[in-house]
């Protein structure tokens, strides 16, 4: 199943993907909230997010609030760090691009025989997973009337 193949391609390369993404964030002049973050702070939790995405792909589930907990943690942590919402949106856009560029390059290099319907289904899961994080981020950035107390 293509979803499993894609998860198998992504999972062992998570450290490389995180680094590629972090480099693209650092290089993006639109993003300024990252300037105070250490490398560890910037990459914080993305490995768990990608691991969760791989699991969602393997199970073939549609991403919802029930299977995107680590994505929520990532957005929540940025929110609590004082990250600007538009910077988080840029980060997630770069994550989407990094993932698709990586996945497409791998599939092309491996010359995998792909059924377009299955490829579209996998892309849809990745898109919906990231969209769920964006949707959650919108909620926590715009709705709270009080700061949660740790």
């Amino acid at each position, binding site marked *: 199943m293509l979803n499993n193949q894609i998860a198998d391609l992504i999972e062992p390369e998570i450290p490389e993907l995180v680094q590629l993404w972090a480099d693209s964030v650092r290089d993006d002049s639109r993003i300024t909230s990252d300037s105070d973050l250490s490398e560890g702070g910037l990459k914080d939790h993305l490995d768990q997010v990608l691991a969760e995405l791989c699991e969602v792909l393997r199970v073939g589930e549609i991403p919802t609030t029930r299977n995107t907990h680590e994505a929520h943690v990532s957005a929540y942590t940025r929110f609590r760090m004082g990250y600007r919402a538009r910077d988080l949106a840029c980060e997630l856009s770069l994550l989407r691009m990094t993932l698709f560029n990586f996945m497409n390059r791998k599939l092309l290099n491996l010359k995998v025989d792909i059924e377009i319907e299955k490829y579209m289904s996998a892309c849809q899961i990745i898109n919906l997973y990231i969209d769920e994080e964006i949707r959650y981020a919108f909620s926590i950035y715009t709705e709270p009337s*009080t700061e949660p107390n740790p």
Partner: protein
Amino acid sequence: MLEQKEFNRFVTDYNADYLYLLKRAATGNYNCLITSSRILKDFHDVIMALHNSLEVNFDIVPYPFTVRGSSEYFSQLGFNDVEVMNILGFVVFVRSAFGKEFEECMEEERPLYCTK
């Protein structure tokens, strides 16, 4: 129909319970935490489902439900380095005690009993 005030109370209760669960994990005593985790995850899922389907807002943000988290996340919740290591150790404990990942245990239909 659920009102915003009641929803806020659900979120407040959930946040308090989640912090309590983490505080217990932070001591390194994981006994029966899996049972509490399952109940609390269900509570979190209900809150998210209500937020999705009703005209209610996150006046108070519910803490994302995770025990994997990150040191940054748990630090923001007030835990020190040793406590964070203990919280993250819960996942390792679950794997060895139940022979499956934490998330699989959350979805398990059978009851999972406390281990000592």
